[in-house]
């Protein structure tokens, strides 16, 4: 009867230490990806006109965006508002200063929707 070669058994292990380390890294990356997709503050503001994406920008930089001469979107300190709207009722200008994901400013006459993109606050508002 031949003796057991410990070295050859070790080499035939399905997973070696490096494999376990690689799997651990992958698992951590998956967990990080899932968390990144389900938490945190709003990252972007999106402007859609007639249902089509007109503009998308990070909230990190202060700026004023002219939307086709119909209204201006103001990004300041991570908050978003609307001014200089040409619509008759100006309801969009009276909307709350947006700083939470899920919030939207809708200008129905101009068919423009300004929305805070991201997760963590509200999935939707009724």
């Amino acid at each position, binding site marked *: 009867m031949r003796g057991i070669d410990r070295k050859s058994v070790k080499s035939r292990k399905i997973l070696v230490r490096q494999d376990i380390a*690689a799997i651990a890294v*992958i698992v951590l*990356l*998956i967990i990080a990806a899932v968390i990144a997709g389900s938490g945190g503050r709003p990252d972007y503001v999106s402007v859609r006109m007639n249902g089509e994406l007109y503009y998308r920008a990070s909230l990190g930089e202060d700026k004023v965006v002219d939307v086709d001469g119909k209204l201006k979107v103001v990004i300041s300190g991570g908050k978003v508002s609307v001014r200089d709207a040409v619509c008759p009722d100006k309801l969009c200008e009276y909307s*709350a200063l947006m700083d939470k994901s899920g*919030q*939207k400013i809708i200008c129905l006459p101009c068919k423009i929707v300004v929305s805070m993109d991201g997760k963590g*606050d509200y999935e*939707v*508002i009724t």
Partner: protein
Amino acid sequence: MKKLIKLIALILVFCCITAAVACSAGETDMFMLGTTVTVNLKGGSANKAFKEIVQEIERLEQLLSTSVPDSDIDRINKANGGDETAVSKECVDLLIFAGELYENTDKAFNIALFPLVELWQFSPDKIYEENKKPPSNQDIFELMPYVDFNDLSVDADKGIAVKKDGKMKIDLGGIAKGYIADRANQIAEKHGVKSGIINVGGNIYVIGEAVKVGITDPRRPSGTVAFSVRAGNISIVTSGDYEKCYFYDNERYHHIIDGVTGSPAKSGVISATVIGGNSALADSLATAAVVMGLEKSLALIQSYSLSALIITEKDGKLHYNSTGDYEFTPEIDGYERD
């Protein structure tokens, strides 16, 4: 080399999993029924479901809108008294459902108030007119004989609707958006969609597991959230006096008309959020609550075994009541629980 292959395989698995997590179909803000419609679906055949939902909403708008020429509703509204108007099965179903709700809400939910809605300048063609002012009592009085829903008869077998008087007009605004949200949810279910949001002008259907839904503050700038509720696989609908309203002599005039007075409802209820599996029912009950007042609307909503948050205003102070299985969490100060 084997280790390298294993590592590549693992990275591919990671990519597939993250792609599956991120995969979603078609979020867009469409302008239909005089409002915005947002559809965001994940899982199953989300792309197919999205396309079919958009087509279905466009089809239903052509049938049910007051402002689309030759829609079922437009033809009923333009018909003379006694004329038979052929309408779609969807329209018949909604008219019959609206009739049941007319009775169950003691006439608070009434789709036949459209002549008054026009008079108060809340119809789609007048909604953006400037410098609005309330109509005279005489003008209101003259229209009151034409706002009884029972003066509309519906023959479901023949698919026809008949008005008693030509001046009678109907508007499905308080029920059609909910009906459309229900249809969209049925299509998403058919295509195996796992999660998502269907938002038809504030008539929301949450598909899949519970998410945090914000409820609009009726007295602060639009977009301010007053309460939140976690809900999944269900519809959430809010009606209130803060939408489609104007001010004249410091008085608020809003679009939810009380059929008894012919004027915007003043029941004390300024916002009603109803949660239930049937969005059309939730839609109509939320509208009726603003007309019926707190006690009657809570009792009615409880009789349907639904959940609700009712916000009232009394002496300038805001109060809230709730019923049902859901927990409504205040997000800001300024509300007292009754």
